[in-house]
């Protein structure tokens, strides 16, 4: 690149930073409106039951209660985010006839305060007829298993097949084949702000909603489906959002009941889920049974891989269909398998719904794949780095029939990590270093939501004082997209970051964007923002050319608020003067630029992929199995780094979440009841458990991305569980094939190993 960036790559404060460190940032949780009521949701105590009768009369009589609603107050529609396939839209949110998991909503109350609403819940009498229930997907696919949804054969919600090459023939040519089984656990998102919404219907029949969300557009459209409204009569605003991680882009049990209650009363209704509801009745990471077969030549060339997966779907489809597909696709990552086959089944169970969570099926596939690959390397007597180098993806590689990978820095990452391991030198006894390689997508291509809109859009308005308003439907959920997108806008326009003010996540004023999921904002929305800024800039440069009397042979540009000839940068004029002239010359209209982005002809999965290699160092106490995460170092490439402080935060934060997935986070159940629905009981990594973290940045340039940038959000969640598993094995020689790798499991494995040795 010959162009020097003036904004991109700078270590800047987030555009909303001062609001966040002063407590003035307004979250949905903080929204208070005149005449506002507080809502609460009544939920099923049974994993599977018929609703025979709901009596709300006593609750309605309680002083302070304004309304009680049940499924009968809805249009009785079923919704789901895979809108393209009506059979996958299977969730009523307020159940009318049947409940399918403990926590399924059956009624909701609006009252003058939370305490009154809570009290009213106990007065709602629901008569159930409990039905036989099924909790484990391996049980649910049996012939005589209870049916979670009528007419769904063997409870199989959806299946996926991916195949290329000739897998069976290739296995016959392999010198060595491994077959292994794994179990990947669930994980809760644990957003610090629980799901919440303030819904306000006016007497004009229009709905306004403040909600903590990853996609205002999806929520707007899903409301329209469920309420039989025009989507433009619904305004959804995502202000500051206290975390998402995949849990906040489907219509949820705060948003929908709040709207139904508000519709009845024409008063604003606020529902904030409790932490217990958050753990038991929102969506979660998909548990998976994994069966892997891997074949290689004796010098470590991987010839064939077969993956068979059965996932615990829980009660409804949600985003589980995507997780099922992506875990299958990413089971081939980040290696060049000439022959590959995947069969995945998502099975309905009477448990809390499993859906999207950061990494989206890839943390599971990376844990199992990287564990097995290390064992393969050991069987063959090959170094773990070497086997990854021998088979790793390279730039301009086509995953047969699936995807085209342009930029790929995997091999540079492997080199850097190898150096880093050498530098760490000889480890103390019972310490081990495990390696794990990964890749991830920069947003999804498949239009399962069935939107007619461009996937990303932005509008740029330049005002008379040269200040820039940027409008986009992108949602900042903490990942920093407001900052990254403002930086892209400022860079393209040639102004300073402080000249840009972003308005995002408000369907009333912003062009639609699919939102923050699948690590899509930087690449997809970034492209839309860059194009919108370029459109506005072109209009300015037309005036500049006339104003400067520049000959047509001169190319003009703007950098750092200076409009100039590209070849003779000293010849130029102030950006502010050109803006004033341009607006006058346009009949006094502010300069408006528009930009859109939808990936075309980029394969089936994503327009770009990022790569990395991570190592974890653990110190194990061989007597007790207790271990400490000492250090996690990641060599990572994400194309051009737009916002370095943001990427560091994504990386370290991912280690907290993915380390937790490997080490301690789990949702044990007893007959469909989650046993640890509180932060005290749900173990996650706190500051004292957090390992040292180091980042080794690798330079790459992604041709498809804005200024060469690509994903840096979710991919980082993929490697850590595998790195921990491999490190434990290096340290004390035991392998744990079911997550999380708790000290208790390590202890048991060590004891077994000792007994076998006797």
């Amino acid at each position: 690149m010959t162009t020097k960036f003036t904004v991109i790559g700078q270590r800047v404060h987030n555009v909303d930073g001062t609001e966040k460190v002063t407590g003035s940032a307004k979250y949905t949780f903080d929204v208070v409106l005149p005449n506002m009521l507080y809502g609460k949701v009544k939920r099923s105590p049974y994993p599977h039951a018929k609703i025979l009768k709901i009596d709300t009369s006593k609750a309605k009589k309680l002083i302070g209660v304004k309304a009680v609603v049940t499924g009968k107050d809805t249009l009785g529609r079923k919704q789901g985010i895979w809108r393209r396939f009506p059979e996958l839209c299977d969730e009523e949110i307020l159940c009318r006839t049947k409940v399918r998991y403990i926590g399924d909503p059956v009624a909701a109350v609006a009252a003058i305060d939370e305490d009154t609403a809570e009290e009213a819940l106990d007065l709602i009498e629901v008569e159930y007829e409990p039905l036989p229930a099924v909790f484990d997907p391996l049980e649910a696919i049996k012939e005589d298993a209870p049916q979670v949804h009528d007419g769904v054969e063997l409870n199989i919600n959806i299946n996926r097949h991916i195949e290329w090459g000739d897998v069976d023939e290739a296995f016959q040519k392999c010198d060595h084949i491994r077959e292994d089984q794994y179990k990947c656990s669930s994980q809760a998102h644990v957003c610090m702000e629980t799901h919440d919404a303030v819904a306000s219907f006016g007497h004009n029949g229009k709905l306004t909603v403040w909600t903590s969300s990853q996609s205002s557009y999806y929520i707007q459209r899903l409301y329209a489906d469920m309420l039989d409204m025009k989507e433009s009569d619904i305004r959804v605003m995502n202000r500051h959002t206290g975390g998402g991680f995949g849990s906040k882009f489907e219509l949820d049990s705060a948003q929908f009941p709040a709207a139904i209650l508000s519709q009845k009363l024409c008063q604003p209704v606020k529902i904030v889920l409790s932490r217990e509801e958050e753990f038991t009745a929102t969506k979660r990471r998909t548990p998976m049974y994994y069966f892997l077969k891997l074949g290689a030549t004796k010098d470590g060339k991987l010839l064939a891989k077969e993956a068979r997966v059965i996932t615990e779907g829980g009660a409804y489809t949600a985003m589980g269909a995507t997780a099922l597909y992506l875990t299958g696709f990413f089971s081939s990552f980040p290696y060049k398998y000439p022959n590959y086959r995947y069969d995945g089944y998502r099975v309905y169970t009477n448990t809390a719904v499993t859906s999207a969570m950061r990494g989206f099926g890839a943390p599971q596939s990376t844990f199992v794949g990287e564990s097995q690959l290390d064992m393969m390397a050991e069987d063959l007597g090959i170094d773990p780095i070497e086997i990854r180098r021998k088979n790793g993806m390279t730039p301009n590689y086509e995953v047969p029939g699936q995807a085209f990978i342009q930029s790929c820095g995997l091999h540079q990452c492997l080199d850097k990590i190898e150096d880093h391991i050498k530098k760490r030198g000889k480890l103390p006894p019972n310490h081990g270093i495990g390696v794990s390689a990964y890749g991830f997508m920069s947003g999804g291509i498949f239009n399962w939501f069935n939107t007619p809109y461009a996937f990303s859009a932005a509008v740029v308005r330049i005002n008379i004082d040269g200040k820039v308003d940027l409008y986009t439907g992108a949602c900042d959920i903490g990942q920093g997209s407001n900052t990254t997108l403002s930086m892209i806008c400022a860079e393209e326009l040639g102004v300073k970051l402080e000249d840009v003010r972003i308005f995002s996540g408000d369907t009333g004023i912003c062009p639609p964007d699919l939102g923050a999921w699948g690590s899509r904002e930087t690449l997809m929305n970034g492209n839309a923002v860059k194009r919108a800024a370029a459109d506005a800039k072109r209009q300015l440069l037309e005036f500049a050319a006339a104003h400067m009397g520049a000959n047509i042979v001169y190319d003009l540009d703007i950098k750092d608020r200076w409009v100039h000839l590209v070849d003779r940068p000293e010849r130029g004029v102030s950006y502010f003067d050109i803006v004033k002239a341009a607006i006058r010359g346009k009949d006094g209209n502010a300069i408006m630029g528009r930009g859109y982005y939808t990936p075309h002809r980029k394969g089936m999965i994503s327009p770009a992929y990022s790569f990395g290699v991570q190592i974890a160092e653990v110190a194990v106490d061989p007597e007790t199995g207790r271990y400490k995460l000492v250090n996690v170092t990641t060599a990572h490439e994400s194309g051009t780094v737009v916002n370095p402080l943001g990427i560091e935060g994504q990386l370290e934060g991912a280690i907290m979440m993915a380390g937790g997935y490997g080490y301690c986070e789990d949702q044990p159940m007893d007959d469909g009841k989650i046993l640890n629905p509180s932060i005290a009981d749900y173990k996650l990594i706190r500051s004292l458990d957090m390992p040292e973290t180091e980042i080794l940045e690798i330079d790459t340039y992604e041709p498809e991305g804005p200024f060469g940038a690509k994903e840096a959000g979710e991919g980082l969640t993929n490697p850590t569980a595998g790195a921990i598993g491999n490190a434990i094995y290096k340290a004390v020689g035991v392998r744990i094939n079911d997550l999380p790798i708790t000290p208790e499991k390590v202890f048991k494995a060590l004891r077994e190993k000792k007994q076998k040795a006797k």
Partner: protein
Amino acid sequence: MKKELKFKVNGQPYDIFVKPKALLSDVLRIELGLTGTKRGCNSSSCGACTVMLNGMAVKSCSVLALQANGAEVVTVEGLAKGNKLSPLQRAFLDHGSYQCGFCTPGMLMSSTALLTENPKPTKEEIKEGIDGNICRCTGYNSIIRAITAVVKGDYKEAK
């Protein structure tokens, strides 16, 4: 029956009436409109509601408002002096020690209380000081770096 609560919040005296079972966090948020203090669990496990009560960090979701009678409470809104941010606030900005920002008020209050009590904590003491606060976004290390920078004297108190 509501009872009288006289206390100071961020230096401002208040004389109000609250229900005996009202939590300090709810009174700060709802009665006084100080919504910087968050609620993440309502069971003193996550630290998002941390405020300073007579100089000590407490989880305001587990303190009855009436227990603060006669006390001095500092919330995140009280950290800046006018338009001047506190050293910790500036350090958090520079080190990117926040993402979604929902835990940040509690995190700032725990670290402010830590440095009030122990201006020169070791790294381990810093980790212990914020161990009651969960952050799901940052992975803590950028927060620890920010506090360390303040301890080293990189950020002076605004005049």
